[in-house]
């Protein structure tokens, strides 16, 4: 037997097989990372029948991977948090760990912690803005986030999502940010005057030491849009934006640690915001 020739034939056969298998592997991986065009078209059609308008290019073809974020309550160690906000000269007025209730005071202000959240009141007299000298939204935001930094909140992890002025005071809502992505569900309400922060109240969490869990591929956005369509009853809707974010359920905000989960955020032109759990596709009320 001519082993030389046999080997040559075998080499050619295996190489051809390898090329074919490589092609199949690439194709599999490629298609696994993308939502088929057909699925997107059919989803758009289905939504249309339910009076929801969305453009195909608004729907990302790429399958998204994300992970849970482990977050720690800013006030997990009450005394330490109080020092950050009120300064080193803080005194403890009330300490009831059994019911999770604390009150701290310092020349800077007062801080009250309880299982429903926290509230801070500045001790200085409020100095509202003059109507004529109101700074713009951007300037105000920058000023206030600097003031938050002074109270121990890292401004890199704070995002202002809502701002309005009333009687010379600015009212803002801040949400935490992780990796450039807002975390819905957790927020604090800020009232600021021309000199700084007057009051703070709400909940606040920061990303934990091992903040991010294992990355997993999320549910297809087409599935979530279908769920939106099935739930939708009413006036025609035009979707303006589809994105991802994180969400921490408000059922658990009175906790020491929570997990923020990846969500889809679907905004419509009427100003409505629809949140869906990106792991299972259920709507978040």
């Amino acid at each position, binding site marked *: 037997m001519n082993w*030389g020739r046999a*080997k*040559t034939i*075998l*080499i050619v056969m*295996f*190489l051809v*097989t*390898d090329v074919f*298998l*490589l092609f*199949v*592997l690439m194709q*599999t*991986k490629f*298609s*696994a990372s993308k939502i088929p065009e057909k699925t997107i078209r059919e989803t758009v059609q289905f939504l249309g029948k339910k009076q929801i308008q969305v453009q195909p290019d608004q729907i990302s073809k790429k399958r998204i991977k994300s992970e*849970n974020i482990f977050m720690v309550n800013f006030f997990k160690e009450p005394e330490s948090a109080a020092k950050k906000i009120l300064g080193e000269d803080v005194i403890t007025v009330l300490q009831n760990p059994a019911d*999770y209730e604390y009150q701290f005071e310092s020349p800077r202000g007062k801080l009250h912690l309880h*299982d429903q959240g926290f509230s801070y009141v500045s001790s200085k007299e409020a100095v509202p803005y003059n109507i004529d000298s109101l700074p713009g939204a951007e300037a105000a935001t920058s000023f206030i986030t600097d003031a938050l930094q002074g109270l121990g909140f890292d401004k890199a992890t704070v995002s202002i999502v809502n701002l309005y002025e009333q009687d010379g005071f600015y009212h803002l809502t801040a949400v935490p940010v992780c990796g450039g992505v807002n975390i819905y569900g957790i927020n604090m309400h800020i009232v600021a005057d021309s000199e700084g922060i007057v009051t703070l109240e709400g909940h606040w969490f920061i990303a934990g030491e091992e903040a991010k869990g294992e990355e*997993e591929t999320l549910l297809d956005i087409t599935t979530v849009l279908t769920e939106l369509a099935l739930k939708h009853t009413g006036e025609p809707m035009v979707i303006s934006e589809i994105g991802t974010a994180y969400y921490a*359920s408000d059922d*658990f905000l*009175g*906790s*020491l*640690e*929570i*997990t923020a*989960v990846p969500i889809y955020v679907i905004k419509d032109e009427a100003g409505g915001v629809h949140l869906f*759990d990106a*792991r*299972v596709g259920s709507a978040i009320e």
Partner: protein
Amino acid sequence: MVKKVLKNLTLVCSVLLTVVLVCQIWFSSSFLPGGYDFLISGFKRHVIDPIVSLFNPGVANDFSQNFKTLYRPEKIVVNVFSQRGVFADGQEGFQEAYNTSNDIMGKLLSGELTVKSRETVDMDTYASLLKGKSLYVDYGKNCDYSLFSFNACGQAQTGFSEELSVVRDYVISLHDTIMNDVSIYVKDQKSGNVYRYIVELDKNSLDGKITELINLSPENSFLSYAFELNFHKEKADTVSKILFEPMVLMELNSTKLPAVSGRKLEDFDDNIDDEMMNTILRDFSINTRTMWRYTDLTDARVFVENDATLTLYPNGLLEYVAEDGGPGLDISKGEGGDDIYDAMNHAVDFVTTICGHLPENYFSHLRLQTDMVENTDSQGVYRICFDYLVDGVPVRHKTGDGYAHTIEIEIDNGRLKSYRQYLKFYEKSGEPEISCMAMMNAADLLVDALYKEGEPLWIQRIHLCYVENEAGTLVPQWNATINNQEHIIQE
């Protein structure tokens, strides 16, 4: 020559590349659901396990082995007239006494022993056997006959199923006052009848075993049964404030128990705690990808899925609660069943699974502690409890509204509605022994707390247990059962 070598190398490489690419395609998670896990677990379930069970039938019959471990008597008393040897579960000699008695009972129920005669006797006769030469086996809880028989002889139904429904204790008597026969007396708790079975047995061997056991037993010269003291009967001329079940063993002197301390899981290794939680979550079918997780203000770790919540408290309590109205976790593996036998099967299997993840042979310290009888009020609904024993003494846990067993399960027709388990280990601490108040003093306190004029307290059981308070300290206390309700007596 070089060309030949190159050719060979190319061939080998191309073959290897083919194998690698094929593996990549087969085991890629985009191709198979769950990737590797799907193939490996399927291979194990359908190929490996059946082969293993062929060579080791005991492994296939898990419920039988596990139930035998969990269902044990509370105590076995060897009586040689006025001499008394008490073997509590966990003490030296108990296993030998149990093997002897269970072997005889198993042979009786399976029909291996020839029954020369069977008759019913009254309770006084039953009690009087303890004054002679006998073995008294007390499980301390009622058990449906099917389970009792299954434990003794491996068969749930036998020729005695007609007359025996619920069993709690039995006596093997070597002599009666006149004839030399071996008699086995079993009381059916449901009908109240006491059956006597006279059997053919090697009496001399049993006699020798009893003598051996009594010599092995610890010094127990201050133990009397309640019936010997006539504490089980109302007095003719005065109103009794307290009465005891005839077979209650009265400890007349104060006793001492070893000091015991508890250790939580994280005392072993922080990593064990995290890994174990993931495994336990899977056992409770909680999807780690879709669950909600948080740590509440009491530092309890909470895992929430749509239908249930699993919580690990800082004191070591693991609690699973199905949502109100929710179906609960199916632990019947699709086999359903709503009688006590099925419920026990499912409960034991589930507990074995959870305990299998815990270090230090946790499972061997457990004992079933509730009555195992049909629930006539609500068919298919059962509450099954297990205690952790330290040298035969159970550990209880003080809670806000009472005292909990180490494991408490609620099952509704094969579905788990709630599960509570203290993931802690208990052992002797080496500190000085703790003195416990005398049993009669404990009885005095019971009367002070519970007695109502004209209604004597009827003590069905009374024994010592360790009570773990909220600070984690373990204190021995007396535990009395009155009207099927437990009362832990505090000094």
